[in-house]
């Protein structure tokens, strides 16, 4: 019979082992992405896969590329370059002194390899396509879209949390039910509308709707505003503050955490969004990073190392945002998740 404490300890160790296995599953694809991004093109598609970027050493002999081999010459193991091959016999030379030649069976040597991280892949990925331009377009959408979301959602949430008016209950229910509405139902007329007013192939369709509030963020903000005591509002009102002043001077200063949460979700959404940019942005000069990456994917299918480098670059902003604002992320998910 084992004691309760021992049993507890065993349980906890079992749980840790399971969590560790899960972590390996979650992290491996990301590790694979980084490893692939640092490879040379020859090393991307190999079987078995390379977990450390390794490649055969290349040297230049009389203006020509040649591979280095570890091979025994005159009883000594040396690194020699293969410059010519006839049948199974190769002509090897000393890379430091190309006059020194040997005729040796190729099979008796092995390829000389080195571990090398091709950091330049990241530079290549960014310069083969106008990545900086995509980034700029995305940032315009991120900044103005987030601004629009914040301004409109704060106003609407304030309205729903602090004012009583006929019809507000039913309007709030309608607002909440729009969460359930599949976006496709409004997609086509909205698309036609934007096209008719000349906004097709501009960034406007991706920014302007943000200024008209959305159910998720209004709900999140309203839930938070409801928890703030109204005594401060009343005090400010007695001092002669109007509704806007109360919002600005009383409500907002108490609401930084929830505003930060709305901000990061809005930034993340705009950064990752693919569908809207796909249907609205045609010319490359207006593309976002997500669209540009997909086009990159289409063109550089055979160059997995560059593809992974470009993909890894796209992940940097969300990952950084996540690590710096973890608590806000988790709060946001929890509040909008549970109370919904």
């Amino acid at each position: 019979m084992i004691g309760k404490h021992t049993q507890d300890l065993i349980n906890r160790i079992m749980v840790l082992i399971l969590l560790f296995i899960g972590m390996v599953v979650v992290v491996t694809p990301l590790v694979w992405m980084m490893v692939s991004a640092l490879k040379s093109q020859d090393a991307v598609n190999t079987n078995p896969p390379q977990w450390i970027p390794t490649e055969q050493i290349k040297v230049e002999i009389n203006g020509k590329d040649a591979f280095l081999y570890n091979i025994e010459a005159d009883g000594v193991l040396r690194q020699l370059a293969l410059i010519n091959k006839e049948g199974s016999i190769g002509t090897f030379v000393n890379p430091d002194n190309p006059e020194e030649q040997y005729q040796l069976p190729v099979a008796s040597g092995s390829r000389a390899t080195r571990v090398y991280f091709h950091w330049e892949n990241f530079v290549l990925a960014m310069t083969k396509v106008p990545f900086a331009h995509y980034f700029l377009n995305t940032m315009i959408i991120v900044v103005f879209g987030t601004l629009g979301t914040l301004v409109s959602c704060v106003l609407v949430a304030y309205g729903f949390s602090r004012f009583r008016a006929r019809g507000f209950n039913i309007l709030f229910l309608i607002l909440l039910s729009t969460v359930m509405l599949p976006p496709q139902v409004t997609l086509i007329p909205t698309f036609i509308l934007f096209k008719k007013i000349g906004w097709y192939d501009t960034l406007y369709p991706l920014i302007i709707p943000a200024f008209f509030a959305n159910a998720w963020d209004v709900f999140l903000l309203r839930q938070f505003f409801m928890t703030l005591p109204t005594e401060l509002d009343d005090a400010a009102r007695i001092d002669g503050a109007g509704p806007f002043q109360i919002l600005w001077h009383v409500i907002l200063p108490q609401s930084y955490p929830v505003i930060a949460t709305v901000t990061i979700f809005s930034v993340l959404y705009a950064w990752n969004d693919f569908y809207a940019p796909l249907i609205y942005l045609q010319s490359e000069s207006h593309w976002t990073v997500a669209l540009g990456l997909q086009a990159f994917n289409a063109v550089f299918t055979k160059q997995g190392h560059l593809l992974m480098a470009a993909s890894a670059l796209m992940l940097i902003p969300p990952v950084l945002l996540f690590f710096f604002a973890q608590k806000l992320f988790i709060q946001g998910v929890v509040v909008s998740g549970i109370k919904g």
Partner: protein
Amino acid sequence: MKLENIKLRNNSAKPASQPMSMRRREALWGYIFISPWLIGFVIFTLGPMIASLLLSLTNYNITTPPVFIQLDNYIKLFTGDPRFWHSLGVTVKFALIAIPLNLVFGFVLALLLNQNVPGVAFWRTIYYLPSVIAGVAVAILWSLIFNPRFGILNWLLSLVGIDGPGWLASPDWAVPALIIMSLWSVGGGMIIYLSGLQSIPTAFYEAAELDGANALQRLFYITIPLMSPVIFYNLVIGIIGTFQYFTEVYVITATADTGLGGPLESTLFYNVYLYSNAFRYLNMGYASALAWVLFVIVLVLTLLVFRSSALWVYYEGELRR
């Protein structure tokens, strides 16, 4: 959504003099503040909803005026379009497997993290990370992982002596591959379950333990009933999400030789088919009909889940029917 959550607070009584004007002013301000949403709702939701319903009764390709064709789009959809049924089938197949798997894995992970293990914040971060980076980059990454010849998945399978399938290149294995991919982001649901688990009072468990309930009984008689609203929420969100599944399929198949929704249309999800009709063939009328059928399907499914929730969702402070 519980109704009492959304009832507006009843402020203190207003002075008897000028009651109407005070109330009116309050209402006016209220409407001013919610006007961004109200205007947006009319322009971007209500208007387009009506418009798409009307468009679904027409033949419209944007360049020439719409032609009214009554219910022809719907008749064609249900009786003369095998690709519609096929895309519906693909989506339902994905939903039937992916949603329960995501639910179970997310729930089990949350249970594990709720076991008073060291480093909860660390584990939570790791498991939630994939949900933060969903999108094009992740789809590209997985299409490399699923590569039948050089991908690491088939290499891992070969280590245990399994000759891996063609995954995204195989009509039979493309959807299972996408399901595996969706499981990678299971941490999103986990976070929600975990916060739900942490809000269950420990007194319940202590009482059950005193009564001699074992771990399994505690799970089935306390944890799962108390978690049922959260499970319910994730289920509804999962159904809605599946019918919007698009980016992954587009990134993986749009430029492949097999074409969008390939191979052999095995990944022709409902939303992918809708996109093709609207933006590749410019059949705006037909695509609108597809959108409305989708709307009705999602509405019916959600209502079914809502109705059935009375049977299995337990809300604290409510009597079970």
